[in-house]
């Protein structure tokens, strides 16, 4: 049987068994609604607040009232961006982001453009770090929100948070960070790092899908974009998804406890993978920052070939990963993030993203490293772009 190696953890993670276990009672018997005054309701409310406390602890928020459960990272980003933009319209209508944000930041920003806001997309450098001079000149006293990813999920680059926060706060704007890729992988302290709003997702920490959270620092001016029964202190109405919240809480607790050891383990595996691939495959490159990067991220690229055909070939030998190639997107455009770090279209098409996770072992890395060179070689033999001397 073919060995099966899943290295696409950024695309989807399995729910940890301990997480599923604590969720089960709330999917079955413990069906109460936290808004109900009876004992079932009390039980649900207690479970919800315990889960919230675990998110508070993971991100080092000051108090539980600063954590709002949402349906996931995309919704958290939408609430943060639109909620702060709309609420502060009287103060200013200028928003700042980088040109390498996740689509769930890019598109809400673009939708604000149509509603009379101005948005400045600040460039990132070739390693994916935001250009701090450009940020400094973009942020003015009319800027109400700056939204920057804590770490980039595609190329792994971790931003200089403190420097960014200082620039943003100098002009009185709020700083939102999309920490979906980072939370649970690297230590985050929203108080020390001076973050005003922060999005996190459950599945990215081995929790269930369909749940996430938004941290909103006390005093931040924000309004809801989803209205209803006033749940989550009015910022995110909708009956609370108790089993998912309980699962996310547990996932956050485990992530916090294992962060150091698992982070070091994954970094070592990742470094081995990158080093050996770059050594064994000519014209291969690492995307993103060489050191300031998420422990599990190996964003690579291979000249003269295209990412989707790499993914298909790897799938045939049991390996799962992603690509920023146009052929794997819904837009027929290569990843805007790879273009933002200065890659040409044809370079971006040849990208391959391995994201490692809990189940990966040294043997998995060995297997990928043994399979990849021949696959690249075969596709290069088919490609008309490959230089003749490389084929001999």
């Amino acid at each position, binding site marked *: 049987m073919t060995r099966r190696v899943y290295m696409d953890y950024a695309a989807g993670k399995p729910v940890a068994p301990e997480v599923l276990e604590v969720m089960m009672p709330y999917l079955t018997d413990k069906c109460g609604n936290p808004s109900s005054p009876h004992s079932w309701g009390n039980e649900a409310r207690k479970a919800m607040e315990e889960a919230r406390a675990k998110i508070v602890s993971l991100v080092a928020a000051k108090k539980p009232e600063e954590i709002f459960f949402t349906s996931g990272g995309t919704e958290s980003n939408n609430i943060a961006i639109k909620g702060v933009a709309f609420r502060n319209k009287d103060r200013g209508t200028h928003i700042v982001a980088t040109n390498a944000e996740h689509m769930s930041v890019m598109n809400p920003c673009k939708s604000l453009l149509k509603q009379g806001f101005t948005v400045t997309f600040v460039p990132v450098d070739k390693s994916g770090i935001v250009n701090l001079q450009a940020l400094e000149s973009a942020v003015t006293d009319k800027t109400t929100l700056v939204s920057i990813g804590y770490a980039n999920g595609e190329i792994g680059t971790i931003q200089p948070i403190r420097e960014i926060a200082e620039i943003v706060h100098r002009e009185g704007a709020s700083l939102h960070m999309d920490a979906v890729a980072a939370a649970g992988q690297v230590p985050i302290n929203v108080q020390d790092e001076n973050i005003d709003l922060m999005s996190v997702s459950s599945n990215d920490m081995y929790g269930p899908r369909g749940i996430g959270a938004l941290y909103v620092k006390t005093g931040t001016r924000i309004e809801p974009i989803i209205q209803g029964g006033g749940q989550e202190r009015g910022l995110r109405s909708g009956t609370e998804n108790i089993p998912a919240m309980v699962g996310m809480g547990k996932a956050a607790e485990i992530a916090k406890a294992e962060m150091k050891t698992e982070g070091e383990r994954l970094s070592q595996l990742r470094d081995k993978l990158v080093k050996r691939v770059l050594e064994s495959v000519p014209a291969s490159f690492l995307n993103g920052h060489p050191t300031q990067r998420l422990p599990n991220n190996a964003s690579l690229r291979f000249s*003269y*070939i*295209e990412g*989707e*055909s790499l993914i*298909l070939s790897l799938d*045939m030998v049991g390996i799962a990963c992603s690509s920023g*190639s*146009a*052929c794997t997107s*819904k837009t*027929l455009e*290569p990843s805007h993030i790879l273009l933002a770090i200065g890659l*040409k*279209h*044809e370079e971006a*098409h040849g990208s391959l993203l391995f994201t490692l996770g809990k189940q990966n072992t040294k043997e998995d890395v060995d297997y990928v490293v043994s399979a990849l060179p021949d696959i690249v070689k075969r596709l290069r*033999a*088919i*490609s*008309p*772009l490959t230089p003749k001397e490389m084929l001999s």
Partner: protein
Amino acid sequence: MYSDKVLDHFRNPRNMGEIPDADGVGTVGNPVCGDLMTIYIKVKDNRLADIKFKTFGCGAAIATSSMITELAKGKTLDEAMKITRGDVADNLGGLPPVKMHCSNLAADGLHAAIQDYLKKKGA
């Protein structure tokens, strides 16, 4: 996402390679878009005696290139000019809708190679 036929042609592409002394060469697509295809033909007695391809692109781009060489080999130039993108897709058991336009370039590549041959012959 892909049919078994597409995956088969992707895995074992037919007639892959170059013809150094080709009678006609057609290149279509653009690496910027993620698909670039070159078709080489050898013509004898008005028929496609040999045909080969080289392709940079996704699974569909490689499979359609392979399929066009199978469909065209041995055909007269007139017959080959009548092979359409639709024929290529049908013979592969269909393509995902999004790939019908971007990666289904093989018929265009074949036609470009034949036109190149006719142009050279006329010159």
